[in-house]
């Protein structure tokens, strides 16, 4: 309550707030909006003016395959992340706060550990002679090593692991706001645990799932390190393709067009989500 009172004056003075935000807004304008416009310009002017870069991207089977791979991986990663993250988030939401903050700390810590280190660790774990394959063969579950690396399976495993915190954090926020008594009420109303989950808990947690899902999906679309290291050359994803176009092939026009498409898709998804879930619920009602 007192927090509300403390915040009220700043809300009343909101128009003045632009002054303080000016440095950040200038940075974003200079180093995001301007480059994006330059990117758009390059994509329709290089090597010659016209929409031929876009035509190439949509027309060529190789590129289409990269787009397909990218969306497939992002979709699968998002879906798996939601399923894996939900029980963790629920556990965190109903845990005693002291214990919860320890588990929370571990999750955050994994986020802060160097990305390359974690991805290389997965390479070691997933390779033909890696710990996972060897253990499975030793206990006799498989006779041949499973192909866990240099394919989309490897990419999915590695990416789900990287993305988990981005799903768990917004989801915990949403789940914590749900009164456990609501579920008891549902039970007494005659809802089986499954019914209570499907009809009450899941719909109530949708804003968190949507927020986390968007974050994971968009990050997955543009992810570079993990897909490159765990996916191998034949399973190239969009970010790697853009890097190759610009670094190796020096084809700025085509690379810019691909990057711009990625940006458009991201913005379209965000707009769609705002419509479906509502801006207030997405940002937690701030």
């Amino acid at each position, binding site marked *: 309550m007192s927090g509300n009172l403390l915040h009220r004056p700043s809300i009343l003075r909101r128009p003045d707030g632009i002054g303080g935000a000016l440095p950040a807004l200038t940075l974003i304008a200079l180093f995001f909006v301007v480059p994006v416009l330059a990117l758009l310009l390059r994509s329709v002017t290089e090597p010659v003016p016209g929409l031929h870069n876009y035509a190439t991207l949509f027309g060529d089977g190789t590129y289409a395959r990269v787009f397909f791979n990218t969306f497939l991986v992002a979709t699968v990663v998002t879906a798996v992340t939601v399923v894996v993250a939900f029980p963790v988030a629920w556990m965190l939401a109903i845990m005693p706060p002291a214990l919860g903050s320890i588990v929370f700390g571990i999750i955050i810590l994994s986020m802060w550990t160097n990305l390359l280190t974690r991805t290389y660790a997965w390479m070691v774990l997933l390779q033909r002679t890696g710990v996972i394959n060897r253990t499975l063969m030793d206990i006799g579950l498989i006779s041949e090593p499973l192909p866990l690396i240099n394919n989309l399976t490897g990419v999915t495993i590695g990416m789900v692991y990287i993305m988990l915190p981005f799903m768990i954090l917004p989801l915990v926020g949403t789940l914590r706001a749900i*009164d456990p*008594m*609501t579920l*008891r*009420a*549902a*039970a*007494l*109303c*005659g*809802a*089986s*645990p499954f*019914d*209570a989950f499907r*009809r*009450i808990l899941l*719909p*109530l947690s*949708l804003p968190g799932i949507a927020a986390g899902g968007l974050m994971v999906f968009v990050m997955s679309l543009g992810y570079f390190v993990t897909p490159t290291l765990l996916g191998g050359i034949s399973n190239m994803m969009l970010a790697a393709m853009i890097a190759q176009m610009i670094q190796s092939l020096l084809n700025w026009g085509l690379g810019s067009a691909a990057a711009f498409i990625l940006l458009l898709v991201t913005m379209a998804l965000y707009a769609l989500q705002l419509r479906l879930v509502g801006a207030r619920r997405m940002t937690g009602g701030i």
Partner: protein
Amino acid sequence: MTKPFLSIRDLRKAFGGFVAVHDVTIDIPKGEFLTFLGPSGSGKSTTLYAIAGFQQPTSGDVLLEGRSLLSVPSHKRNIGMVFQRYTLFQHLTVAENVAFPLRVRRRPDAEVNRKVAEMLSLVRLESFGGRYPGALSGGQQQRVALARALAYDPPILLMDEPLSALDKKLREEIQAEIRRIHRETGVTILYVTHDQDEALHLSDRIALFRDGRIEQIGTGEDLYLRPASEFVASFIGNSNFLPAEHLETVNGSATIRLADGSVVSGVRNDREFSQGQKTRLMVRPEAFRLRPGAATAGLAVEFIDTAFFGERRRVIARTAAGQEIDVRPTSDMAQAQEGIAPRGQQIFFDPAAAFLFPA
């Protein structure tokens, strides 16, 4: 003997070494409005949760029409419940909330719609079906919760301090609604509250809890007029406790000596006290009179403060022994004529309306 409708048998609930409920036994006839009254932590909510199935009792049993409920999970108990906090499903409209228990029971649409309309009219929210809970006041939300809890015609309705989040005026309004709904539906209600006025206003019977045990169970009148213990006497209504020495008891009528040396006889007493034993005499503030009537005992006091409250007068008086007592005689015309003398007054009470408790 006919089987009781709902029967709580030797119910005990321990959390580690702490026993929250000590072997509580109650029989509840069909259609009764029974209130569990008591201070917080007295075990009343724990008992209710055992009936709801949220907590498995350590020992004892809960029987509905002779069948044990303990092995039945919450969602199959077919019990209605209204909670202290607002537990409406925020993503569903009022009508969908009320329909929820019927939907999970896979009832046909026509029946669901008819029942929802019937329930919304029972709680007088007919025009609110399309709204979301967030757009309702606290009182309206609890009425929807009541409609949702009654939609599937449960044999028992549990209410866990449903009005504690509401302001006084709204509380009284919804109390009247609850009484009406109990009258109209005939559902058996178990109601938990720490508010004695609410308990007296609503219930057929009150079970007064203290430290995990039932101190007394009976009608509001029983508890008020015939309190079984000093705790009951002080929890229900207001009381004055005067130190008194027990002289003798003959045929349930005690003679005592008060601190100022005056001897009072005719005090109702069914306890065993020895001669000279220290006891406490309980007199309700409203049992005092400013004029002696028939068979009244006098008490010499000094008036410290008097105030007029319409139906009652309130006097703070000090006894010769220096004890402050609360005196609230009625202020009807006959009494009003008495006037109030500022000093050296006597007040009077009927010994038969006073009780003797161990010191």
